[in-house]
């Protein structure tokens, strides 16, 4: 069974003399409770794919089937209702929030808009969501500006799981987190996947992160999907030049005698 089927998606951006083929004939699929890791050079089109999937920008061509529906042709009330099923955690976390909002109101919005829990239970649900992502309940009263970057990222994840989606698109969602908390968030995401069967489209530059959580990995290069395969296979035996270069550039932990920069290309 497939949850998501993306077929021959394309998107160009032109402005003045700048013309970019951000997506060029991209096809991929995702099963329920599956994690697809999406990696690729900066500017290769990963966020564009995510934004089209979120219906934030239109595609130029191609089709998306999500939960059996023609996702790109949904509009109006249908789209609004179905939107709760795909959630996203953005790369640019501060820009994703109203800077005047409190943490509590950020989590209250989706619960109210999509009618997830009755009004009387919302405060408790917000506390539970905060607890799930490792934040104390009293953070609900803080302004979103008064928490650290990493804490903000955890709030974004809490907001995403609030509507009980079947798919969450994570665009560099854990990259600002330190290793110990990142590990906990990854474990949390895996746990939620097991519990609720959530699928993830997991965009990250960090191949070690993708290796930890992905069933399959897809590699993008200049708007094209150049490789897809089981996570272990892609990491251990990359076929494409793009995957090769990305894997070779992963920083290695140096704890012994200095060998000069470990990031030699």
């Amino acid at each position: 069974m497939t949850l998501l089927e993306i077929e021959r998606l394309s998107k160009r951006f032109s402005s003045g003399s700048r013309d970019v083929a951000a997506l060029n004939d991209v096809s991929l699929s995702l099963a329920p409770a599956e994690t697809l890791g999406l990696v690729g050079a900066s500017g290769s089109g990963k966020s564009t794919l995510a934004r089209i999937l979120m219906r934030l920008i239109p595609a130029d061509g191609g089709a998306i089937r999500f939960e059996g529906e023609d996702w790109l042709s949904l509009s109006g009330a249908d789209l609004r209702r179905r939107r709760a099923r795909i959630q996203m955690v953005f790369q640019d976390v501060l820009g994703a929030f109203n800077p005047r909002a409190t943490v509590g109101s950020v989590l209250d919005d989706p619960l109210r808009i999509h009618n997830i829990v009755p009004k009387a239970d919302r405060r408790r649900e917000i506390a539970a969501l905060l607890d799930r992502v490792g934040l104390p309940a009293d953070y609900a009263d803080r302004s979103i500006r008064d928490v650290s970057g990493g804490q903000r990222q955890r709030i974004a994840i809490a907001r995403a799981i609030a509507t009980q989606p079947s798919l969450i698109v994570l665009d560099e969602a854990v990259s600002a987190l330190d290793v110990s908390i990142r590990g906990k968030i990854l474990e949390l995401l895996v746990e939620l996947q097991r519990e609720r069967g959530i699928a993830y489209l997991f965009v990250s530059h960090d191949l070690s992160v993708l290796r930890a959580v992905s069933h399959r990995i897809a590699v993008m290069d200049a708007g094209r999907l150049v490789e897809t395969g089981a996570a272990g296979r892609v990491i251990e035996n990359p076929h494409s030049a793009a995957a090769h270069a990305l894997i070779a550039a992963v920083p290695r932990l140096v704890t012994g005698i200095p060998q000069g920069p470990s990031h030699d290309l």
Partner: protein
Amino acid sequence: MSMLCEIRDLAVTYRSQKVPALTDVNLGIEAGKRLAIIGESGSGKSTLARTLAGLLPAGAKISGNIEWQSGKSPVAGRDLGFVFQDPTSSLNPVLTIGEQVAESARRHLGLSWKDAQIRALEMLERVRIPQPENASRAFPHQLSGGQRQRVAIAAALAARPKILIADEATSALDMVVQAEIVSLLDELVREAGMTLIFITHDIALASGFTDHIAIFKDGSLIESGPTIAILSSPHATYTKTLLASHRDLSTPPLIAEAVI
């Protein structure tokens, strides 16, 4: 060995907060070297960076002191470049990429507008922005996250600052570009004598190229010293935990693969 500054008994408390974001920080920063600042989310890394740059928000209380070797605090933008964790907050949405970078060179190096634009193009090339001529006419929202971050780095470096604070500046970049940016920063330290303060959560990245490392937890400096010494024989339990929880490509995955 010359010092850039000595931080003594520094504590910072944000307005309306009861708990300080930093306490009891004592740290010397060497001029012309590469210092890594490591620590978990909320440990106070950005607070330290903002304090050094004089960019704390109004109402923040500071105690203790920072003694600058030069006798005066560096001017942010001119003497000290700052690349923020979140590139959108440092870029002006209504200026083109070329204008932002050129503006920094014009203001701080006193270049003519024309020379500043040439310098801007040169910087965009050095941070590996593809098609820099075209990109310089684009607006921030037209670039990918990683491209925006490179523009922020270019703008900070355009003024040839003596100190660069990079706050998670490479975490939005792909690993290939990250490696290129890191070697560019490395080169600026070696050739231009710049002091680099590199905030990261990637201990492997820091281990490869920094001279010193300072590890923070809950607003306190846990330990600091030469990178190799700290990472090969850490004293603090926290540092040991950090090293143990490091994940690389050979770490066993959290999921059973190929269930599909």
